């Protein structure tokens, strides 16, 4: 039995329009203005525009609002097409590369034609291949004009030895940055996973030659991507992704919830899944069985209350005209410290942060703008 939807905080109520777009017809102009500003910053405006349009409501809205929605819909559809095009080109480049080739995150959502792919603004393209194929795949990419971004020796070593991906690659014609992964978390992290576990349960996508993670693993990947990351401010979109994945996959599989919880225990991601489920349920009204919520809450143990407070402070978006609150900044710093400690042992972390601080200082000195660009 599904638990009744929790009471959603007033500041988050607008997110309900992503599920029930009819509510937008009651919004006043100032309410719209706030939602447009917030959702644009959170990269959710395209999602909102597609939902409102699919419900046939765009024409009923004030003209200034409808214009912004139509404009963003065009923009996100164009970016999504660029992603499709890039994957198509990669199919050719990697035609004789060893299988499997796996789409991750946004490209996987498009490659499965999931409802959440509509209006989801892609920034880069993430793909996963087994570690032993990385060199072969990268050689083919380089032969097809993909190149690694320039970086110093420290950063190169960081990617090679401590990371779960190779440095981001760019192409002179294709506009999306390519992130080539061999895992979803760094191998040195406290919470990590053996890539073989993920590769053992791949599923076909709608694009030939490309696979996606198992639905459980897609949810867990999205959860660890958010809750193991260094920057969690303005990340509501990840919760919207999680909500969409859970709603979609649970509708198709009656054993979704017990299966997901078991998989999370197996991969030791229960804590991330518990956080994901808490916030999707409380802020987005994601339906889930009471037994699942209770089991997840219990799995977090004594740390639960503190973690929820921290994450709630960080994930709550700052209002458009407000300055970020001190509380949010402090919570973000605590989580950043936690992130770094979880990601790298101290013997690696201290020299890494020292190097980063020096590199940043050198960069900001270089970026001092002496001149003024103006329009042409």
């Amino acid at each position: 039995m599904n638990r009744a939807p929790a009471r959603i905080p007033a500041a988050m109520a607008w997110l309900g329009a992503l599920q029930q777009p009819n509510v937008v017809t009651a919004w006043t102009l100032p309410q719209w203005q706030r939602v447009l500003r917030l959702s644009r910053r959170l990269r959710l405006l395209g999602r909102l525009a597609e939902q409102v349009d699919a419900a046939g409501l765009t024409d009923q809205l004030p003209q200034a609002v409808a214009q912004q929605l139509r404009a963003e819909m065009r923009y996100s559809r164009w970016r999504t097409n660029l992603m499709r095009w890039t994957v198509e080109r990669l199919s050719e480049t990697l035609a004789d590369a060893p299988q499997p080739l796996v789409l991750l995150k946004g490209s996987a959502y498009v490659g499965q034609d999931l409802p959440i792919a509509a209006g989801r603004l892609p920034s880069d393209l993430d793909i996963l291949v087994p570690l032993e194929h990385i060199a072969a795949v990268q050689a083919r990419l380089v032969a097809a004009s993909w190149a690694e971004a320039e970086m110093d020796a420290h950063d190169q070593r960081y990617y090679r030895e401590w990371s779960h991906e190779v440095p981001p690659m760019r192409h002179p014609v294709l506009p999306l940055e390519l992130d080539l992964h061999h895992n979803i978390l760094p191998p040195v992290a406290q919470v990590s996973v053996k890539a073989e576990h993920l590769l053992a349960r791949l599923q076909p996508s709608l694009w030939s030659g490309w696979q996606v993670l198992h639905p459980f693993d897609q949810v867990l990947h999205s959860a660890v991507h958010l809750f193991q990351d260094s920057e969690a401010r303005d990340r509501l979109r990840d919760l919207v992704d999680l909500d969409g994945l859970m709603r979609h996959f649970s509708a198709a599989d009656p054993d979704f919830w017990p299966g997901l919880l078991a998989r999370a225990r197996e991969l030791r991601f229960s804590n991330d899944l518990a956080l994901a489920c808490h916030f999707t349920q409380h802020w987005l009204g994601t339906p889930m069985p009471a037994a699942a919520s209770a089991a997840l809450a219990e799995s977090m143990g004594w740390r639960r209350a503190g973690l929820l407070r921290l994450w709630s402070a960080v994930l709550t978006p700052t209002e458009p005209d407000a300055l970020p609150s001190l509380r949010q900044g402090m919570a973000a710093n605590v989580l950043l410290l936690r992130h770094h400690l979880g990601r790298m042992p101290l013997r690696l972390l201290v020299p890494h942060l020292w190097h980063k601080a020096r590199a940043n200082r050198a960069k900001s000195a270089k970026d001092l703008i002496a001149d003024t660009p103006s329009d042409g």
Partner: protein
Amino acid sequence: MPSDRGLLTLGQAGLQQISNALRGDGLWLDVGVARMRVRSDEPSLAAQLQAVYQNFPLQTSSDWADLHIDLRRQSGLRRWLAPQVRFFCDGQVPFDPFPADAALPLLEWGANWLIGRRCNHLLLLHSGVVERQGLALVMPALPGSGKSTLTAALALRGWRLLSDEFGAYDPGEGVFRPALKPVGLKNQSIDVIRAFSPDAQLGPSFPKTRKGTVAHLAPDANAVMRVHETARPGAVLLPRWQAGSATQLLPVQPQMAFSTLAFNAFNYQVLGAVGFEAVVSLTQRCPVWQLIYSDLDDALARIEALWPDVLAREAA
């Protein structure tokens, strides 16, 4: 709070009123394709805005803006040593900071960037647009074209200014919409326009920008009053300034005009098929000329002489 729209222009208002608005809820500027709300704690900005938006109404409250812009002084030691301003929009900082004494160029540049990124309900050609008798004259920006100089000169001789930067074409209605911002003039163009029209309302000069010295021509009261009045496509002019040359007007084949219009647009690719069809329709509806000129007065006389034909062709 009573609406102050239409009561006073920025030029008529006191500097203090503008400053207070910038430091308070904001100053609303309606440029046609977008309503901007500007806030700032940079003291020099009020006088700069007063000069180049002098004919815009002083509007200090509204329940709507498309672009919410905040130019904020950098805090910390830098505030005193080499002060800088940062461009904020909806809590994001899309650009590097500018020196604090160049707040207006940062505002203009940033606002244009936002319009170019966001107004994808329109095809945004990169061109100057002026209007006479309901028809638009579109002048695409090509390197060395002197587009802004010619746009400014036409605006100073009674053509209605729609935009110096955006040919904002509404594919649904088949009309151009004003994107009415101050005309950005660079280097010699500033003196050319001063000499051309001693009454030209030019704002302060900003030396040492990436493009050299920049100054802005204020849109006149007529253009501001009619900021929501559209114009049907009339003609396309590809200007080329060439020192010492006699004025020449050469007809251009539509297929040549297509690539010039499409590939100079800010968002041609974003619009996809809609953009393609819009540009095709423009090249079919509008006669296209290349204008080679060195003398502004002579160039203007030739353009004015063309207009009866353009009107007759459109009516046919």
